[in-house]
């Protein structure tokens, strides 16, 4: 940092600080609002009388004797068995990520290292299928799945999510592999590796940031998916997002909307943990360059 670069007019510093703070508030506000509100009752959070009620919580105080209540969480997690949805999401996400990363690394590596022209067209085709709205694909799946009697099960959903996700993982990993010089594979093979050993011992260790980044995107796709999971899963196999949606859909029963709010907050927490945990790999993966020999 040179002195010249540091010499900014104080007005500019103040302005940019204010802007960043403003942006932070705007970005974080919906989440903070929801989290705060998740400890209130419906009468406060969705108050028609005064929006300030969502912050102070007079109805919550009248009903529970304090400004905060765990009613929403209790209802969602215990009464409505939200934990079952969390478990289902866990299973679906885990297998989707593992399967699509396995296929993606192997396929991306093969495509990156084969000099044939069809590689480009394969990847283009993959991109086209990725660009389609998911619902067009899923509606086509429904009838065959009913007939084969595999509708409603988690493995079916996992396969569909992997299929939808694969083009993207393939593209992303393919470009990561391209950034690794071919010399590395060849050096490993001359050093005594088989093709697969070269891949496993020489390439994958260098590829970690790419694998983690791609894995995170697959994770988010599977975690946040609504279209596929809501159409392909039975009530008891539902994952978190359709489950939350079902809470929201039943407004006739007082308090159930608050289950949705509590569940939403519960669903966000793992994402924070994940991003904090893999933050370093994700950054180096997104900025690539990290894989330079």
């Amino acid at each position: 940092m040179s002195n010249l670069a540091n010499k900014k007019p104080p007005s500019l510093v103040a302005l940019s600080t204010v802007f960043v703070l403003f942006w932070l508030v705007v970005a974080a506000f919906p989440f903070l609002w929801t989290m705060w509100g998740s400890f209130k009752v419906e009468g406060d959070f969705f108050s028609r009388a005064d929006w300030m009620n969502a912050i102070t919580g007079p109805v919550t105080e009248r009903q529970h004797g304090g400004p905060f209540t765990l009613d929403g969480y209790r209802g969602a997690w215990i009464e409505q068995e939200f934990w079952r949805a969390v478990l289902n999401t866990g299973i679906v996400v885990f297998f989707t990520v593992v399967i699509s990363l396995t296929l993606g690394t192997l396929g991306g590596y093969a495509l990156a290292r084969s000099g044939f022209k069809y590689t480009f067209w394969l990847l283009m085709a993959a991109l086209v299928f990725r660009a389609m709205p998911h619902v067009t694909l899923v509606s086509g799946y429904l009838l065959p799945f009913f007939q084969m009697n595999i509708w409603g099960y988690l493995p079916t959903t996992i396969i569909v999510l992997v299929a939808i996700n694969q083009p993207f993982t393939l593209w992303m990993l393919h470009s990561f592999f391209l950034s690794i010089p071919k010399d590395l594979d060849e050096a490993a093979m001359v050093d005594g590796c088989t093709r697969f050993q070269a891949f496993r011992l020489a390439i994958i260790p260098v590829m970690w940031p790419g694998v983690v980044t791609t894995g995170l995107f697959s994770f988010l796709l599977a975690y946040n998916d609504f279209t596929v999971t809501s159409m392909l899963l039975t009530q008891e196999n539902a994952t978190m997002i359709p489950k939350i949606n079902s809470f929201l859909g039943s407004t006739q029963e007082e308090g159930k909307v608050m289950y949705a709010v509590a569940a939403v907050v519960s669903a966000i927490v793992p994402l924070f943990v994940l991003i904090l945990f893999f933050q370093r790999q994700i950054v180096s993966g997104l900025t690539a360059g990290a894989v330079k020999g």
Partner: protein
Amino acid sequence: MARLQLKNVNKRWGSFVGVDNFDLDIADQEFLVLLGPSGCGKSTTMRMIAGLEDVTDGEIWLGDRVVNNLEPKDRDISMVFQSYGLYPNLSVYENIRFPLRVRKVPKEQHHEMVMKAIDMVELNDFMDRRPAELSGGQRQRVALGRAIVRKPTVFLMDEPLSNLDAKLRVSTRAQIKNLQSKLKTTTVYVTHDQIEAMTLADRVVVMNKGKIQQVGTPTDIYDNPANTFVASFIGSPAMNLVEGRLENGVFQGDGIRVEGLPAGSSGNVTLGFRAEDAEIVDGAGEISAPMYSIELLGEASMITWRLGGSLVSIKTNKEYRAEIGDTVNARIPAGICHLFDTASGERIAQ
């Protein structure tokens, strides 16, 4: 330790010929350099020996077996790459140990073997560093260390010095020469730099457009180039080549006339001679033409004429002074001249 033979080896991609009928016998412990411009097929030839490229036609013998269909790992060779090909996630020590690990050399021998290699390439102070923390020359030494650690039968080196700066190139070149003479391992070395070829090789193979142009010792190809391609590729500066007509032992070109050449042949020929063999004279000479340029090289001056379509240069002492455009004469004895057939480029037997 082994003899390496390439028997009529061809490489084709569709109709494109990469390597055309390459036939060569490389003796045990020989240092062979494949030399040629980029795209001449020298790297492809080496990659076929390594097993990184399939052989379209012909046989490669390593010792007493054909290795055409063997995987690279089963050929017992080691290779140094232009861009090093180091494992960026491993330390210098682990990079050099890698071949031992994947080849399942007993663990208790690893340390001794790795340390011996590290000693030879003088990397003792950098053992625990990652490749990214090393300079280009150090990285290439790691690659060398990795190549020598398990004592392969053949070393392959694919332009190992190309990514280094000029000064480092000279010292690493000397190091490679020294290593090879200590280890006595058959070595095939690919380069486009004729000075590397001249300094390192026992024998040089000059290649162009997939074909072998000439095989010989460095002195051989320098003194007796087989055709105009080799003549213009070897030496710095390259051999002067002037087109003209030969009749009754007299060569006549634009601004040049050489007498006393072999009378056996006549017709359109190209006359070649080296800049350092001829000399500038005050009196009459074989060349008498206006000077095109004069350059001071340091230890000498280089006088250039434009004769016909080609530039011809001669070295003279560094005190020599003349103005551009002055007529300058040079003496070119018939004994230093090489004659090539202009149409085919081949040397005319003398």
